[in-house]
């Protein structure tokens, strides 16, 4: 099959090798960190809201892990600005696979959705809906 890959298409590899909005924001409205304990993927999302307190203005991420988790985070930082917190809260797994544009195998879904989960949990903590230190995704790979 040569160098082509079903899951690791050009867009994924591009975002992994050249992550967008990678780093930290100077004054984020909220920040949150999560990990896949079994994979070692970690992601921190910084989110800055507009003055309305509802619209996402800027997003940055940092962390490390597999290409799927990091590319997903990078793409999410481009997707989220302009959307509202309630739209973020409604994002599901299908939205993420659609954003990635590739079929993610079942065992890798948790890598793909980590960044979204971190952003959603960060927003919930910001709104006072939940109290957690860190997001941990479910499941063990062994």
């Amino acid at each position, binding site marked *: *099959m040569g*160098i082509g890959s079903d899951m690791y298409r050009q867009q994924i590899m591009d975002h992994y090798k050249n992550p967008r909005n990678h780093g930290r924001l100077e004054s984020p409205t909220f920040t949150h960190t999560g990990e896949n304990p079994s994979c070692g993927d970690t992601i921190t999302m910084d989110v800055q809201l507009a003055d309305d307190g509802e619209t996402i203005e800027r997003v940055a991420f940092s962390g490390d892990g597999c290409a799927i988790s990091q590319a997903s985070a990078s793409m999410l930082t481009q997707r989220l600005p302009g959307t509202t917190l309630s739209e973020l809260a409604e994002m599901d797994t299908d939205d993420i696979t659609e954003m990635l544009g590739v079929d993610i195998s079942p065992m*890798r879904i948790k890598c793909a959705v980590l960044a979204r989960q971190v952003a959603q949990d960060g927003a919930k903590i910001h709104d006072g809906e939940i109290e957690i230190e860190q997001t941990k995704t479910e499941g063990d790979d062994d």
Partner: protein
Amino acid sequence: MRVQESYPVDVDAIRADFPILQRKVGGDISTPGEHDDDDTPLVYLDNAATSHTPEQVVDAIVDYYHGYNSNVHRGIHHLSQEASVAYENAHDRVAEFIGASGGREEVVFTKNTTESMNLVAYAWGLDELGPGDSVVMTEMEHHASLVTWQQIAKKTGAEVRYIRVDDDGRLDMEHAKELIDDSTKMVSVVHVSNTLGTVNPVSELADMAHEVGAYAFVDGAQSVPTRPVDVEDIDADFFAFSGHKMCGPTGIGALYGKRDILEEMQPYLYGGEMIRSVTYEDSTWEDLPWKFEAGTPPIAQGVGFAAAVDYLDDIGMENVQAHEELLAEYAYDRLGEFDDIEMYGPPGDDRGGLVAFNLDSVHAHDLSSILNEQGVAIRAGDHCTQPLHDKLGVAASTRASFYIYNTREEVDKLVDAIDTARELFA
């Protein structure tokens, strides 16, 4: 020269016994058993997780269901008696395979290695362990024993200790001498590491346990399938292994225990099959091993387990071991050609038939996904040795593990597939 002449076993003949090795992969996984859209030949290198099942074993299970399926030890009718004889004989056959001279009375059929471990932890550990006692394990222990003894220790107030693994992936035996002391009641050690491939000196560790009056429990999940094992030579008090890693079916494993120890232990599960007499007030237990096999046991699986042992004995466990070592050394050498591959554990000529490694700058899960797209089945993750991976400083690793039907050509395909990942991530 024909290919099989260069192997310790007749690989071509063996491969013909495993139809699954001929299948292709890569299609829709949501319809198991339908392979129309699969297009990539399978290279199966995940044998430490589970081995495949030869036709001889499948046939034995089919014969059971077609010919004498029945519950054991209950009916006086013909089928039940045939099933009982087959199931009981399977215990003797498995006992013989691991050198347990006590036969069926020293071999309890369980669900798997993990259940064998839990059986002893609950039936012996809960009664015998307490504050001031210690259980000694190794840093390379599989979660099956590590988590089990860790949690039993929490319940009983006992202490768990771990024998250090040195930089070469071997046990620090001086450290073992320090840890195994008068407080030690159990030394529970893995025979062949499922991550490092290290073959541990379990006989020496059993001697050290016995010197302080402790029991020795050997986790043989990776050793019984891959080499001759004699539990009496090792002098293990307990020994656990699984059927599905040695050509047998899933759902069955075994616990070997020295007869006098098993006799003193109380049952772990209560219910049918394991009782001699019952009143509303009290019950008495069946003889060994049945007192540890409550409920309807895995009869078909027991029959399959014995057939798997027959299959391996026909090949010869010395030959199985030689084949494993040949492939391990070949894989170690091939992977060792690359500076960006880090391997874990002892050198290629001193290990069991598996190699765990990482490709620099490619996460183990990305690597395994890319290998999978090329039909190469390996395992990525922590292989149920999370604390060992923490010690190695990696979250996960990729593991190729071999069995009697694997070839050097398949190792070459693994190396080629890794190269594809390398290019993709370059």
